């Protein structure tokens, strides 16, 4: 299953699973929940944080967190 961290700049996906313990509650409250679509806007250099649009919110998270979120790639 692809992870949120696999998205490339400009690509979209749909969130499938966020059940990992390590995912901060705040991210879920911003709408990062199963079923919602997500788009990668920018990737900071050297594997830095990623900048996403999800559920109408714009949010930056670290790669480590993105690796825990399962998605489905959409075209």
């Amino acid at each position: 299953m692809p992870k949120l961290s696999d998205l490339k700049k400009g690509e979209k996906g749909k969130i499938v699973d966020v059940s990992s313990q390590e995912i901060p509650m705040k991210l879920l409250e911003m709408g990062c929940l199963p079923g919602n679509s997500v788009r990668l806007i920018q990737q900071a250099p050297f594997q830095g944080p990623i900048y996403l649009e999800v559920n109408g919110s714009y949010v930056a998270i670290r790669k480590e967190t993105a690796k825990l979120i399962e998605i489905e790639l959409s075209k």
Partner: protein
Amino acid sequence: MSKQIKVALIGNPNTGKTSIFNSLTGLNQKIANYPGVTVEKKEGVCRLSRGTKAHIFDLPGTYSLNASSMDENLVVELLLNKNHKDFPDLAIIVSDVENLKRNLILFTQVKDLEIPTVLAINMSDRMKYKGIELNIEKLEKELDTKIILTTNRSKEWVGDIKNLIENYKELSSKIFLDTSIIEPEYFNNLKKIFPNQKLYKLWVVICQDVNFSNVSRQEIENTDFEIKSKSQLKRLQQKETIKRYQLINNILNEGQIIDSSKAQGFRAKIDKILTHKIFGYLIFLMVLMAIFQSIYEWASVPMDLIDSSFASLADWVKINFPSGAMTNLLADGIITGVGGIVIFIPQIAFLFMFISILEESGYMSRVVFLTDKTMQKFGLSGKSVVPLISGVACAIPAIMATRNIESWKERLITILVTPFMTCAARLPVYLIIIALVIPDEKIFGLNYQAIALMSLYIIGFVTALLSSLVLTKILKIKKRSIFVMEMPNYKFPRIKDVFYTVFEKSKSFVVEAGKIILAISVILWVLATNGIGDKFENPRNYITENVQEISQEEIQTLEASIKLESSFIGYIGKGIEPLFKPLGYDWKIGIGIITSFAAREVFVGTLAVIYNIDNYDDSVGKKEEIKKIMARETDSNGNKIFTLASGISLLLFYAFAMQCMSTLAIVKKETNSWKWPILQFIIMTALAYFISLISFQILS
């Protein structure tokens, strides 16, 4: 006195709570003890009709009632504690019209605490541009609340909100979501054990990591109630969030129309440049340089003006007041001391202005995004950039601004290293010492004095980074790599809002520093003009020079200095002199350093008091600049006190030493333990001593 209504402004970060607060209260704001981006509760008064007053509280932004950082805690704590003196009679939930869906999550949670609510949908000026239409009547009915469309571009709505506040008793306080439907079995059980408590409130308490006064977690854990593991709780919280989103989506589907063909472009275009992997960093560097440049260029005009006004004020006092020690205290101690602070207002105001513009425009988040990875290498978070930059103004608000850093280890390290940044209070000391010991000459078109000052800033920043590196290695705290940051829309900051911030911060800087300076000047003066013993009573008998051969004026000067050395402050100073001698300081500088532990900016005022008593000089209308007196100072062998060696040693001492009680107090408060401020104090001061010692021994 009539009833005072308490109103809490609550909402996601950046939705315009502070703007609404400003519109409602104007300059009637009770200034918080410490300035800062709203990390503390701020209180202001709003006058309603018939003499009723509303106390408005501006609170830090939060996404939900599940507090995950310190600043969010403050909000949750207030809303859960009915006995809190500021517990609100009603809450105004401020939401951003562009992201109602997410904003309403918090709204429904506050509603479930059974607090009467008003929903302020802010940024309504952007609706047309974004193609958003709202059916207010429908939304009011479905959400069971009163809705006001607000904007900081006009004031038409203010009357409506005042009306609602005044009649807050008519607002609905019915819950939005029946908590038990999240998981009936668990919640019905909970209800049985605590029949008298509100169910949602219990649930919020259970989910927090902190204790709240009236229903403590222990109390809950002590019953035979089934305790859920962290992961089970989290699953329930997730369920709650999903449930709320479902209900909100249903409501918005009917009450909101968004024409998605409308503008998205502006944000994307700017982001493309500002978060670009090369231009992003270049622009950030340019912004920083522009800030420093303008602080020193622009601020010099008002600074010169202030300098000369205080000098004339001191002269005026000396001419028009009966001459004597008391007048000298007023003119040379207090006026010069306070002037030494007031002169920095322009720079501080500029600095706060830039920081507030960077914050409000949304740019700061992009900097955090760009620097996170690099900062992590030093054990910090991208979010540490904000405290480090504001640390250049003052460490106190900077340390408070660490509250949104989620990882405790990253936050602690940020708190510990921020005081190394060159704060505004160091400037008075730096500038006067640099003017004394560094030549005012140029090399390759660069002024030596400017280079010296720049180097001190760089030393501060580099030390902050290096100590973080060391701290990450030695602190045995498990690090969780949490980092969630909203990237807000770009906004043009409003001049008025920026002005409020600048005004408030500058005012509290002067008031706080002024109080300390006043107190210390008086104490020093009393200690310096009193003493016991024959040497103090009859200094003339102790003059070693032949009295016949020297002028009357010289005799008086000698007398004054013998008298000062045998005053109380002289004894104290002589007592500590051995400690400071190896660093190149005489006992007077020693006293200056000791008083600086109250606050660094006191240094200049302290020297002014001591030197002016020493330089017995009641020639009126000829106030000597403190700088000139300092340049003349010599030790008993006639060697100058302020040389390159002692000057640099002193500069380095101020760069590293932890000389600020208020900072230590805030570190104690923010870390909730004495351990960290004490360690910070010892280590920084020892480092300062050691480095100054080495530099003096090498240079002299």
